[in-house]
Each structure stands twice: as structure tokens, then as C-alpha cells.
């Protein structure tokens, strides 16, 4: 029997597997290395890095909702310098590609991180996060406006020749408008979706539960929304898509590929099962064998092309 070929090219990044670690839940990778064989991953996208250290939002930062998770971490991170000196080195030899998620409050800040990461050994891609709902300025403010998207992506593009992913926000009326703006500004691939903006209220105190009032909703609850946005973006742009939002099973992975993603990332799913990564990959391979589809590339966007014809 043929062995399924899981290789994909994500906007210039050659991946051994189409299953990636989404930015955030895995932190900078250290803690989960002990629980997962990272060489099973196509890449790890590390948590958002800004030019200077960010403190993040007040506690509490997490609230569980029905099949979902609200977080308001607020991109707490040690800043570019500390990332380069402390967090990156141990990641280099973990057997997978490294993509760095970058954030800023202004276009200049985005550009500064990008330029600081340009040419650094072991960094295979940048993911421009213009979609974090947990910031007062920057973040999502860029990702909900096509012009701002264009500006920030262009600015980052000028700083680096590393493959650029742009991470889109689902909190928009029409995802294709933003997707096209990012593509036009030079993105090599698009990541979608970031979290949906949401909140929860503690009925005992009568106040918003999260320290930051609002948070970003992730997890299985948002999968149908994410899938539709991937489907729509696939119909609008030519660059490859990295699909994510609520993946917890191989069947979820397949859905995203069929909808138009070239690869997928798992975020919140790691919390439900700290060893999820290898199970997803096995399940994907099993599905491909069962369906007689031996290249992941052939799964991508298949649902746009009439689906699978496996009738005898």
C-alpha cells in the first residue's frame, strides 16, 4: 500500500506535515516538548512576540464556555530580545519548523519585530497577527480594516524576505476583503481564524468575569465559523491558507483541508489532550488511506471541486 504524502508547501515554507501548533496555547514550545514529539508537527507557531516586553492583561484571563474557551492573555511576552536569547535557542533543535507570531501596537512596532527577526537562523516564517481581540490598540484594529491591513503587511514585507503568513480576524463583516488586502500587500499565506470576540459575566458579582472584560473565544464552539471563513477565503485568494479554529480530531483536520486549507493548526485542542498532535496525524493518514487519496495537496479545497467520488 502506498504511504500518504503529508508534505505541503505553505507559502514557501516546506512542511513535513500539514498539522501545526497554533500560536499561543503552546507558548514558546518548551513545556509541550516533553509531552509531544514535535517532529510530528509541520511547524510550531510560537506565541506573539513584540518589540518590547508586554505585561498582558489583568487576571482572570481564562473562562471556560460551552465547548469553548475565552482568553484575555493580552499577548504577554518577554519582547524580541529576550525571545531571541532565551526562547528561540532551545526550540531550534526540536525537530520542526519555527514560525514566529509577531504583534505590535503601531505599524512601526510590527516593522521593528520583523526586521529584528529577519535573517535569524532557524526562523522559517513569520505570522503577522493583526487579529488579536485582546488589545486596546493595534491587533484586531488592523485586521478589521482592509487599508490598515494593507499598510501593516506592506511594512512588514519590506523588512524581511522570510515567508509571511498574515493572521486574520473572524470579527469582520467580510473576510474576503481583508484576505485580498493581505494578499495584495505581499502575504505568502493566510492564517485563519484568530479568536471570536466574546465575554462572560459572573452572575454572583454581577461583573464581567475576565479582568479585561472581553476575551477571545476559541475551541470547538467556533469551528463552523472558522470553516466557513476558510471556505470563503479559498474562493477569494490564490495564496495558500492555514486553517484553524476548534480542531480536536482528525475529522476536523480533514474538514479544514476540504474547505480549502493547505495546512491546519491546533490551539485550544492541546488543552483537552496534551498529546493530541500525534493522534491527529495518525487519524489523517488513516482517512487518506481509506479514501485512496495519497497527497494532502489533493485534499485541499476538494469540497469546492465536487467532493470525493469513492463509489464503487
Amino acid at each position: 500500500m502506498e504511504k500518504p504524502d503529508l508534505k505541503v508547501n505553505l507559502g514557501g515554507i516546506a512542511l513535513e506535515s500539514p498539522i501545526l501548533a497554533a500560536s499561543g496555547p503552546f507558548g514558546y514550545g518548551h513545556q509541550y516538548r516533553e509531552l509531544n514529539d514535535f517532529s510530528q508537527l509541520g511547524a510550531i507557531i510560537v506565541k506573539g512576540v513584540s518589540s518590547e516586553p508586554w505585561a498582558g492583561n489583568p487576571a482572570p484571563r481564562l473562562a471556560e464556555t460551552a465547548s469553548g474557551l475565552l482568553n484575555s492573555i493580552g499577548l504577554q511576552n518577554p519582547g524580541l530580545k529576550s525571545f531571541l536569547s532565551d526562547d528561540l535557542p532551545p526550540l531550534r533543535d526540536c525537530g520542526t519548523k519555527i514560525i514566529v507570531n509577531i504583534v505590535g501596537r503601531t505599524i512601526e512596532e510590527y516593522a521593528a519585530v520583523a526586521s529584528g527577526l529577519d535573517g535569524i537562523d532557524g526562523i522559517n516564517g513569520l505570522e503577522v497577527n493583526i487579529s488579536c481581540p485582546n488589545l486596546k490598540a493595534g491587533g484586531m484594529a488592523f485586521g478589521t480594516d482592509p487599508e490598515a491591513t494593507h499598510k501593516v503587511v506592506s511594512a512588514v514585507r519590506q523588512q524581511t524576505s522570510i515567508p509571511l503568513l498574515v493572521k486574520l480576524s473572524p470579527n469582520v463583516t467580510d473576510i474576503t476583503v481583508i484576505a485580498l488586502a493581505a494578499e495584495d500587500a505581499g502575504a505568502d499565506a493566510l492564517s485563519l481564524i484568530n479568536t471570536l470576540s466574546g465575554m462572560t459575566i459572573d452572575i454572583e458579582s454581577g461583573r464581567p468575569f475576565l479582568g479585561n472584560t472581553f476575551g477571545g473565544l476559541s475551541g470547538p464552539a467556533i469551528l463552523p465559523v472558522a470553516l466557513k471563513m476558510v471556505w470563503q477565503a479559498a474562493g477569494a485568494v490564490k495564496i495558500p491558507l492555514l486553517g484553524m479554529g476548534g480542531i480536536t480530531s482528525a475529522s476536523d483536520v480533514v474538514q479544514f483541508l476540504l474547505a480549502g486549507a493547505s495546512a491546519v493548526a491546533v490551539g485550544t485542542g492541546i488543552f483537552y489532550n496534551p498529546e493530541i498532535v500525534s493522534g491527529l496525524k495518525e487519524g489523517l493518514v488513516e482517512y487518506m488511506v481509506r479514501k485512496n487519496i495519497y497527497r494532502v495537496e489533493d485534499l485541499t479545497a476538494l469540497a469546492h471541486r465536487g467532493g470525493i467520488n469513492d463509489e464503487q
Partner: protein
Amino acid sequence: MVNSYSTAIVETKEITSDRYCKLTLKAPAASVKGLPGQFVMLYLPSEYGPMLPRPFSIYATDREKGLISLLFEIRGRGTELVAGFDEGSGIKLLGPLGSCFPEPPPGALLLAGGLGVAPLAFLARRAKTPVTVLYAVQKADNLAFQPEELTRPGLILHLASEDGSIGYEGTALDLLAMHLEQASALYSCGPRKMLSKAASMAAKAGIECFLSLEERMACGIGACLGCVTETVQGYKRVCSDGPVFAAGEVVFNGKA
């Protein structure tokens, strides 16, 4: 330290007054490595729908038999499901996790509000010196274990209840006030508001004070930055920088 994720087997389960559950699990690695103040994450099977794991302090260990015990209140969906596990069934467990209490000096006070007693009971049993446990509940029914369960030479246990139905009539802080003078150090776990006041009382008395904090958690291992608490050095992770903190580090901010 390598985090250990494995399947623990429910050895025994006791549910008292419909509200408290003592769960003893066969979990050799956690039982051997677990220290007072550390906790484990229990994972709910996916047949119940996606659910975050639930953190529980280690209440007791039996290193020879490879057992750990947890003592918790049945509060919501997660603890209900955990309390529903049959003896003999398997449950995924990650841990032991987090920081532990330092060895208490002779004459240390261990102040527990409600279920905060779990890690302190473990500490009291393991400690090599005489310690005094102050355990305060709202009413006698809320005792999560029989006082006889917590005995060893040199261990003194004082109970209090707000309605006076057992022990001294008063709060944890009343009990603390009564015993603070003789104390060499304070170790405490319980509601945040209580911890905040206990910490200032210890500071006034000029004794060392360690607190075990709680926060909502997702990863439990320091990766997600979801469980932070404010400290004098900025936000720190309760799961991996804590849950035990020196009281002087913690910023209470008037928030309870």
C-alpha cells in the same frame, strides 16, 4: 522536570454530604514525586464534550502503594463528572505540577479556609516538625474529612465554624488571631480574601508567610499564560511559578 501524563485508576471514592469527594487514584509517578502544595490536572473524557482539565491539590499520598488522594468539593460540571467515576475506571492525569511549600519550621501555623485544607493537610502529614493546623469551615457539615484522619505526633488541629456547630465559633481569621502570637510562620490556602488578610496579619506579626493560590487554568504547565496572578515582579503563572508563593510577592490589589 518531565511532566508525566498517564492514566490513573480510581482505587477508592468516598462522597460525603453530597458535596465532598475524596478520590484515591493509583498513580505511581505522581505519588512518588508529589510534594505538599503541588497539584495534578484531571482530564475529562471526550465523550462528555470538550472540557478543560480540572486542577486539584494533592491531599495525601501512599508512596508504597503508588496512590494519591484528592479531596474536593463538587461544585460544577467538572467535579460532578470526576465524582461520578467508578472505582476501577481510568482517568487521565498530568502531574505533579507546580511549586511546593517549603519545609515548615517548628511551630508553624497552617491556616485552611474550606477546601484549602487539602494541600495543608498533606503538608501537615509530611512535615518533620510540630505544626498547628487551623481549619475553618462555615458549619460542621462542611468539614471535608473527619478530624481523626489528620493525626501524627506533633500535629495539633484546631477547628472553627462560623455558626459554632463545631470547634471555635468564628472565622479562619478569628482563629488565626488567637494563635498568631506563638507562631513561627504562616502557611495558608483558602479564599483569596482570607489569604489577603492573613498575609497582612503575618506581616504585622513579622513572620514568614506562604500562600497557595488558585486561578483558572488551561495548560497547567506554564505554556499558555492563562493562570497569572499579579506579583511585585509582574504577572506570574500560578500553575508553574506557583501555586505556592511567598506572601510578600503577591499583589492583592483589593481584589478578592
